[in-house]
């Protein structure tokens, strides 16, 4: 036989046919907006090759509520309820972040006690947010019990927050220049008891999950993100710290009383889901410490500044003096007149750096309120984390980045 016929015979031989690649098509799966695993409402178009994700594309916008446009049409204080509903599991952090930005624009310095109250409120809601994220992660991986413990602990915290602000989750607490209510009587003792119970529940959750073989198998090594990539995508918060980058706004640019309390910032090494989950557990412990230190360091004093251009006059003045009445009237009807200018202010929300870009034109209504929600960047990096991994890895990854629909879609 000639060489050519030899080759041909070789090609048609049995073994090579068995080794031939079967061409296959990828399957497009629509994990639609109404889906149990998509918190808030996010639609994913997933192209699958067997179980491997070839391409994943999120489509958002199913919770867009016109936050920016609404804020442009109301006064500065009336923006507060809109800001609550951005990151709705930690509304106090949103409220206080927005107020920080307005106070920076107006060059107001809030009283000491108000700073402590804001810190305590933000840390309480930070614990609640981390509990929600951890509980939801466990539930979607099948561990329902951890979810119930997390909801119970979160309920206890919300009871305390409701005693302070009046509402469990959408608090609208804080005013420009401070906070509007002082701590109720006996609240400090109740919060300390609550923190003890929350710590017990948190340790129960940790016992169930941290050394759990199934949990580790599903979370360790999945949803990987290296430090350089995480920075390039704009990650902040636990997702960035899990990759090993030490950036926490509370340490880098301290605000309120964070430079006076002693707390640590947990850092991860691998940048995978397990690190993000473990960092959240550790951050809950640190928040606990911060709240206790704040209680020890707080002094009685005013909770809001005394300037009637920014703060409503006290009611006895409103009912007895002309200046009080006029001040009250102008603040309510026309809004607080923040001087012209723009600012970018940032605080550490449980998900990352919550930035506010405000533009004021000198009138009582904002000209532009832009919220730099940490979830937007996290969602943008999802595709990078998931391309190449299998479909079941999507669930823990999407859970641990803790994308809250309200802030991503404003």
């Amino acid at each position, binding site marked *: 036989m000639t060489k050519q016929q030899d080759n041909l015979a070789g090609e048609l031989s049995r073994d090579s046919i068995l080794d031939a690649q079967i061409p296959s098509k990828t399957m497009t799966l629509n994990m639609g907006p109404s889906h149990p695993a998509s918190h808030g409402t996010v639609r994913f178009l997933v192209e699958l090759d067997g179980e491997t994700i070839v391409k994943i594309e999120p489509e958002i916008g199913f919770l867009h509520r016109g936050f920016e446009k609404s804020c442009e049409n*109301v006064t500065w204080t009336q923006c507060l309820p809109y800001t609550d509903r951005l990151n709705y599991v930690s509304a106090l952090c949103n409220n206080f972040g927005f107020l920080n930005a307005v106070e920076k624009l107006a060059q107001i310095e809030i009283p000491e006690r108000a700073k402590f109250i804001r810190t305590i409120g933000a840390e309480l809601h930070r614990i609640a947010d981390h509990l929600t994220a951890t509980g939801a992660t466990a539930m979607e991986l099948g561990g329902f019990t951890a979810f119930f413990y997390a909801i119970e602990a979160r309920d206890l915290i919300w009871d305390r927050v409701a005693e302070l602000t009046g509402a469990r989750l959408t608090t609208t607490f804080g005013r420009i220049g401070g906070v509007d209510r002082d701590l109720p009587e006996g609240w400090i003792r109740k919060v300390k008891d609550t923190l003890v119970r929350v710590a017990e529940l948190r340790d129960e959750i940790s016992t169930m999950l941290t050394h759990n073989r199934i949990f580790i198998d599903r979370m360790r090594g999945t949803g990987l993100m290296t430090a350089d990539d995480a920075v390039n995508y704009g990650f902040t918060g636990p997702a960035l710290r899990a990759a090993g980058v*030490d950036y926490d706004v509370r340490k880098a640019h301290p605000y309120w009383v964070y430079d006076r309390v002693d707390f640590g910032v947990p850092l991860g090494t691998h940048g995978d889901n397990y690190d993000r989950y473990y960092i959240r557990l550790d951050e809950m412990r640190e928040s606990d410490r911060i709240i206790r230190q704040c209680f020890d360091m707080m002094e009685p004093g005013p909770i809001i500044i005394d300037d009637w251009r920014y703060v409503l006059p006290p009611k006895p003045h409103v009912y007895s003096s002309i200046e009080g009445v006029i001040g009250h009237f102008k603040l309510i009807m026309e809004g607080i007149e923040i001087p012209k200018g723009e600012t970018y202010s940032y605080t550490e929300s449980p998900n990352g750096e919550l930035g506010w870009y405000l533009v004021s034109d000198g009138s009582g209504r904002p000209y*532009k309120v832009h919220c730099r929600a940490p979830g937007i960047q996290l969602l943008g990096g999802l595709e990078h984390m998931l391309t190449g991994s299998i479909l079941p890895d999507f669930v823990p990854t999407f859970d641990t980045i803790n994308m809250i629909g309200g802030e991503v879609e404003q």
Partner: protein
Amino acid sequence: MSEKALRQVAEKFPEAVLHGYSQHGDETLVIKREALVDVLQYCHDDPGLQLKLPASLTCVDYIDEKPRFELVYTLYSVTLKHRLRIKVRVGEEDPEVPTSIGIYRGMDYWERYCWDMYGIRFTGREDMRRLWLYEEFEGHPLRKDYPLRGRQGLIPERDVRDIFRGPGPGPGSVPASRAATPRPSQLPVIK
């Protein structure tokens, strides 16, 4: 705190920088649109700046000024812990800006947000889709001349009397400024 960064960039690109200022502790540079990609690349790569984290990109509609739109880029450095804000002015007759997702992949969603809400087109990227609204939506809602209640429904709705109850201008009224974009009808659009 980052005035050093401001001066460094201004010295490197003297013809591109229109002016720089510092207000309330934020350093801002206003640059020309053509130099945007070069400035951002320099901010990202230079070891003295290391502004590698794209914090946000937003747009402000100054309807009474020309040029109308102002894009605001906020960059941060996790290593040197400083921040820089870069602004670009874009007019409404030519709302096109070169894309920066080649340098900062995190700007992807923000660029789509600027297109969706303000109508700023970013050249150099394959898909310019809306981020939050649906493709059938006409107009760009965050522009100042778009009515607050300009609802464009996708499916037919039951005829319920629309009660004006919220703040802002009522249904049917529009802020008294020139309408640059064609205003969509207030009734639900049934395609």
